[in-house]
């Protein structure tokens, strides 16, 4: 029985493989957060599966002593779907990057979310192709100078949250690589969520896109530029915890608590379980410098999952159908006897 077993530790989850990410890469911190989070889920080690595509982030499964596949570019969500439907008892994690999941794997990404397949998708968003050494990605900021855009990109980036919510996503969270504590908390919630959970981690590529998130993540200004959302708590941020978010007409607005008669109780309270995604979308779309960037679990609502619906449908059909065996099937059409 699981309860009688010694609790899983981060150490148990480390594989014997040498970690080959660059020194200073944000991935190291994400690996640490994952290895901290998983033991908190009460799931047996053998029931974890890590599946990845191609890219720096996709090397992840090699570093976890769990079941895993390092597959082909963009397809982790599709492979994982087959795994989860076959055995809904597994806790399946997709480790992916912005190129892997939003460019070559974009189709699988949106359809997996639409189906509410019970998978955890962790996107390491560094706004660059790292493994192929520095080309722009679908999340690169417009105008980004990279090896394939020496004069700046002319295309607009995807924002993962918009795709998630546009695909009827039920769970979306955001973290930053240098906040292991927050990432760990988010991963625990993602792991507990039934259905597709998407976690975007703003991750720094120290070699090809260094400091791309620095204006949000630097210690110096992070408190003023990050809004860490918690379900049921007011949206307050700032070094002095004196700034908040209110709804002004159809827009979010930053206010200073104690100024112009604004009191703490005027500040919006975060409801991650609100079914209507309107406010969630606005929160996820807050961008520097006009707004703080929202972190934490932005959206977390319940809905039937694909794999349980499949299992239930099979049960229902089996209860009704006259076909119980292969022989029943063979004899189910027009048959005739040759004597």
């Amino acid at each position, binding site marked *: 029985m699981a309860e009688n077993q010694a609790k899983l530790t981060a150490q148990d989850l480390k*594989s014997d*493989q040498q970690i080959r990410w660059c020194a200073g890469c944000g991935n190291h911190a994400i690996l640490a957060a994952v290895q901290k989070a998983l033991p908190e889920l009460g799931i*047996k*080690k*053998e*029931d*974890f*599966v*890590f*599946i990845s595509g191609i890219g720096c982030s996709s090397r992840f*499964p*090699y570093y*976890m*002593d*769990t*079941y*895993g*596949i*390092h*597959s*082909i570019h963009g*397809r982790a*969500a*599709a*492979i*994982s*779907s*087959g*795994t*989860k*439907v*076959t*055995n809904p*008892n*597994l806790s399946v994690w997709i480790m992916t990057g912005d190129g892997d999941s939003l460019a070559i794997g974009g*189709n*699988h990404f949106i*359809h997996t979310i639409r189906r509410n397949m019970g998978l955890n998708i962790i996107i390491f968003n560094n706004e660059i192709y790292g493994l192929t050494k520095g080309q722009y990605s679908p999340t690169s900021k417009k105008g980004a100078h990279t090896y394939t855009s020496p004069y700046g990109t002319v295309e607009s980036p995807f924002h993962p949250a918009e795709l998630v919510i546009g695909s009827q996503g039920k769970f979306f969270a955001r973290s930053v690589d240098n906040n292991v504590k927050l990432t760990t908390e988010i991963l625990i919630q993602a792991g507990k969520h039934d259905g597709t959970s998407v976690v975007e981690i703003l991750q720094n590529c120290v070699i090809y896109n260094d400091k791309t998130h620095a204006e949000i993540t630097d210690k110096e200004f992070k408190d003023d530029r990050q809004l860490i959302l918690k379900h049921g708590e007011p949206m307050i941020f700032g070094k002095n915890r004196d700034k908040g978010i209110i709804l002004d007409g159809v827009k979010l607005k930053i206010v200073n608590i104690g100024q112009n008669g604004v009191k703490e109780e005027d500040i919006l309270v975060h409801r991650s379980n609100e079914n209507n995604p309107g406010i969630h979308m606005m929160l996820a779309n807050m961008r520097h410098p006009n707004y703080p960037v929202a972190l934490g679990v932005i959206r977390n609502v319940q809905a039937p999952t694909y794999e349980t619906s*499949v299992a239930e*449908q*099979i049960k229902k*059909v*089996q209860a009704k*159908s006259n*076909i*119980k*065996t*292969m*022989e029943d*099937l*063979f*004899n189910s*059409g*027009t*048959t*005739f*006897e*040759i*004597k």
Partner: protein
Amino acid sequence: MSKNLQVIESERIAIRFSGDSGDGMQLIGTLFSDTAALFGNDLSTFPDYPSEVRAPAGTIGGISGFNANIGHALVNTPGDYADILVAMNPAALKANLMWVKPGAIIIVDRDNFDEKSLEKAGYTENPLNNNDLNGFTLVDPPIASLVRETLKEVGLDTKSILRTRNMFTLGMVYWILDQSLEYTDNFFKEKFKKNPLVVEANTRVLQAGYYYAETTEVLTNVYKVPPAEIQKGRYTKLNGNKASAWGLLAAAKRANLDLFIGSYPITPATQVLEELSARKDLGVKSFQAEDEIAAVCASIGASFAGALGVCNTSGPGLALKSEALGLAVMIEIPLVIVDVQRGGPSTGLPTKSEQSDLWQALYGRNGECPLPVLAATTPSNCFYYAFYAAKIALEHMTPVILLTEGYLGNGSEPWRIISMEDLPEIHPPRVFKAVKDWKPFERDPETLVRPWAIPGTKGLEHRIGGLEKDAITGSVSHDPLNHQKMVEMREEKINRIVKDVPDLEVFGEQTGDLLVVGWGGTYGHLLTAVREVLQEKFKIGLAQFSYIRPLPKNVADVFGKFKKIIVCENNLGQFANYLRFNYQDFRYLQFNKIQGLPFTVEELKEKFINVIEEK
């Protein structure tokens, strides 16, 4: 019977039903072949749909046909040329006249040969009134008028009345072939039980057609096709796609595994997915993916989790799956892809048959990427080849491609019902318990097969992936010598499957002047042609391949016993060149047809005799 009637016993009768997409030709074709099957005839049928759902009515592009060949003798093709043609309108007549035997009976609805319909079919004058149909027995009742008259008291609307015209022609056919109306009458009662008026209308019209044929002076012969001498037992009719679906499911059941099908609709393969999606009752998990790539990937993920993952597709879909097939080869996971081939390249001829995916199946992947390739040879043996493809995949931890063809997928024939115990057991190399120092790539020294541990099994956690791996530990390795070793090992692993491949058999003469070589769905036509050439005392044999990779062990022995070898296939010579590459000591003649149509027995016979007689 009043008229001077002759009863002619026939070995085989081929019939073509042809009309607009909405005329109900598939239905009467099915009722006709069920009736023949119940009577004990051997049979083979093939539907011929247009690729448009409802092309403009009355045009040649919109013609829907159903061919049935029934026999006292064994039947191996749906019949190249018809003894009886039912053509509901001028376009149907025009499209099929080249496929009718001299002297055949042609049944048309005279009411449909008006100026407008003739013009749509491209006729400048009415073929019923000039000499176009000389040499045929033309039966041309005004069917629309006759069904109106028959049903004037039944109280149906005009549209429903006219919809029964197909049953009038079916009734005529039943009289011509001295067949019973009973099965068809019962079908009406069952199918339309909620609408007694429709039952009555169809029953009456079927009878009206039957009696019309009896009365008309034009028809002077009744053809009798006595029951065939086929293996005793209970049969059902199966087309190749349904047979493939059942074979895959039977393999999963025999191996005690769940069946998972990841698929994306594509003509002419879709029915495999449809059939398995309906098999929730037998626990099938079907996943209609967002694209062909997701379909194969989901099936790989399912196999990783311990199911039998399978896919069905056609040529363009197989092209999209090739990268993922490489992954399946690299991670050594069981997977079956059924490729129901169609005319290519690109979108090509979606509803027509071809054998041009052979090289794609063998070679269409990056890197040295070997996998077994099988080919079914008849609609009903798609069941067995799907089963054996899955058995090889599971026991050898490899993706397998089963090639079928549109011609097999849609063609139907009787299949003798078996019990599951008749099928061989399947033993995948599953590992259920942790052992010390277990390694995911420690191979069976005989077969080179790796063990299969699935997620959820304690103590066997491991990673697999598309990167080259160390031969022993399975960890990522870029070592040059290791890579060569692994490439050779993957090749050798597939080559060793030859132990499971039955020897090539020859039909007809075992040594002689000409060996006809075919593979896959050309079997029925090649067999019929070779059988007929043998009757003319030529020294000819037929070797039909089902195992393409690995090839059977005795190929060279078989080839060496004939003076000439001719490879017949519906492509430009893919198998012939594959044989040249593998067995270089022989000279291969070729006969290739790439028209989206099967060979005809006539053209094959002519070719074989010419080749034998050529010095």
